[in-house]
């Protein structure tokens, strides 16, 4: 009963105050509650449009836009914070902050759900979708063209191809169907995790990865995080003892966690590694 009353009050407030402007072509106030949409919003929108971004994009380790969101109000993906920011449009991820998104939809706030793309074509589609939603389709097209230009650099021809595996904290790896897998294959690498019957992002025990015979182990670049059991696997003594059998390639996770222009930087590192001596 109380819940229904609250919903009614919120809906009334919404109708009376600010939801009416949501239909305008270029939304004046956009709130993003997902790290990846934060990045696209900051890079594609006019600064005045950005009403709030998630706290994750201000925490420097995982974000490509940390220095550009210092003055932007942060949210933690809670519906209450989002409503308080009076958005004309909310950008969310399809798999994150779902409780907040369902509340926002119920009270009539327009929400764009961005997907987690697994291929380069899907990346372009997501960029286009976000760019169109915030009224800057032209900037989206420019971003896509630049991404295409950088992704079309020649890749090394090498037989046999180098075998690579991604090793992330907690033993997570990038399997088939993930964007990381697509980038690795495009760069001319064999993704070992794909042979090991994994889901998109699965967990692998260290011994499976090592015995599968990898030439390149792709780990997170910036290691100096807070202590965690999850990252202990990345400093397991066996990795040091593998010696020159396996080369460790470092890619900062912020480059390819999301689907912005930074994936071209990750791609550069992969292509360089794929062409180097084993």
């Amino acid at each position, binding site marked *: 009963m109380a819940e229904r009353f609250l919903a009614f009050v919120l809906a009334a407030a919404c109708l009376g105050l600010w939801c009416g402007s949501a239909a305008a072509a270029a939304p004046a106030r956009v709130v993003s509650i997902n790290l990846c949409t934060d990045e696209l919003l900051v890079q594609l929108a006019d600064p005045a449009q950005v009403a709030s971004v998630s706290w994750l994009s201000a925490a420097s380790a995982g974000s490509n836009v940390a220095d550009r969101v210092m003055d932007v109000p942060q949210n933690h993906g809670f519906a209450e914070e989002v409503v308080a920011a009076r958005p004309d449009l909310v950008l969310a991820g399809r798999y994150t902050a779902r409780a907040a998104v369902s509340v926002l939809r119920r009270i009539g706030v327009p929400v764009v759900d961005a997907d987690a793309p697994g291929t380069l074509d899907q990346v372009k589609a997501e960029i286009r979708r976000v760019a169109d939603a915030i009224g800057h389709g032209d900037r989206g097209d420019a971003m896509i063209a630049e991404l295409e230009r950088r992704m079309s650099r020649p890749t090394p021809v090498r037989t046999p191809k180098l075998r690579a595996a991604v090793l992330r*904290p*907690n*033993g997570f790896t990038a399997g088939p169907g993930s964007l990381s897998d697509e980038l690795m294959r495009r760069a001319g690498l064999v993704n070992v995790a794909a042979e090991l019957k994994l889901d998109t992002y*699965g*967990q692998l*025990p*260290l*011994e*499976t990865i*090592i*015995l*599968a*015979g990898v030439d390149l182990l792709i780990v997170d670049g910036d290691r100096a*995080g*807070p*202590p*965690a*059991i*999850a*990252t*202990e*696997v990345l400093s*397991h*003594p*066996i990795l040091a*003892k*593998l*010696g020159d*059998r396996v080369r460790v390639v470092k890619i900062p996770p912020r480059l390819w966690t999301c689907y912005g222009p930074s994936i071209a930087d990750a791609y550069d590192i992969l292509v360089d590694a794929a062409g180097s001596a084993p």
Partner: protein
Amino acid sequence: MSPSPPYAPLAGALAALVLVAFVASVRIGYATIDVGGALADLLAGRTSLGALVLMELRLPRAIIGALVGFSLGLAGAAMQGLLRNPLADAGVIGVSGAAAFGAVMAFYSGLSASFGLALPTGGILGAGVAVALLYALAGRGSATMTLILAGVAISSLAGALTALALNLSPNPYAATEVMFWLMGSLADRSMTHVQFAAPLLIAGWLMILVCGPALDALSLGEDTATSLGFHMARVRLLLIVGTALAVGPAVAVTGAIGFVGLVVPHLLRPLVGGRPGRLLLVSGLGGAALVLAADIAVRVVGVRPELKLGVVTALIGAPFFLLLLWRLRREA
């Protein structure tokens, strides 16, 4: 009392069981390696992939499993003797939980990154405080109810503090790591863990094992034990410190694995004629076999990501615990 089998063959049989479980644990992994070939490579100084996996992953995992299992089994038997209560298990009465909290403080503050021994030390301090507190609250053969309730209070508090400390740490994996500390795992541990835990664990074992005769005497009552020439204050101190040394570093390396110290001593008690002193060594061996077997189980059942070890021991141990309570109630 029914006649019990002779002690030496029983201990020998359990030691053989531990050996079998150890070899099986080394042989059974996620990938197949030629253990014989890897061993030959290792002895010849060739660092083949198989030899590396054997030396750096399989062996530490099995060694830690055996050490931790022995510690938990032994500590269970020791606390049951000290508190004269068959339900006193490190996990059930909160000692493991408190050790986990101590280790969590040492680990997430970054102390253990610069000073390796900080991790087991944190575990020892946590376990020591809990054992001492329990003894003060529920020692000297007081009612089972008091012990269990004190344990519930310590467990809950330690669990809450562990979760709180993790939530306050700037660590994006905090939510999953609470599981590690509360349920325990041997996944991807290394020889480094063996090196810093083993000496402390063994010191704890020795302190507990020398108390065997005193525990036998204590089962006849404190006055009798004193009249038999045992210095009870010293025995208590040895057992409390020994338990802290056995449980603290174990939990610091693997997280809290529950019920080992409950199930094993209970199964073996009839086989040693109910003598708490004789129960010590065999409970250690039985604990080692149980943890090794549980760790083989989490790798062969094919549930990914790997089950936490404490899930398996609780699935075995918790129904057992209920059964035990049921029997105690009927006896009362």
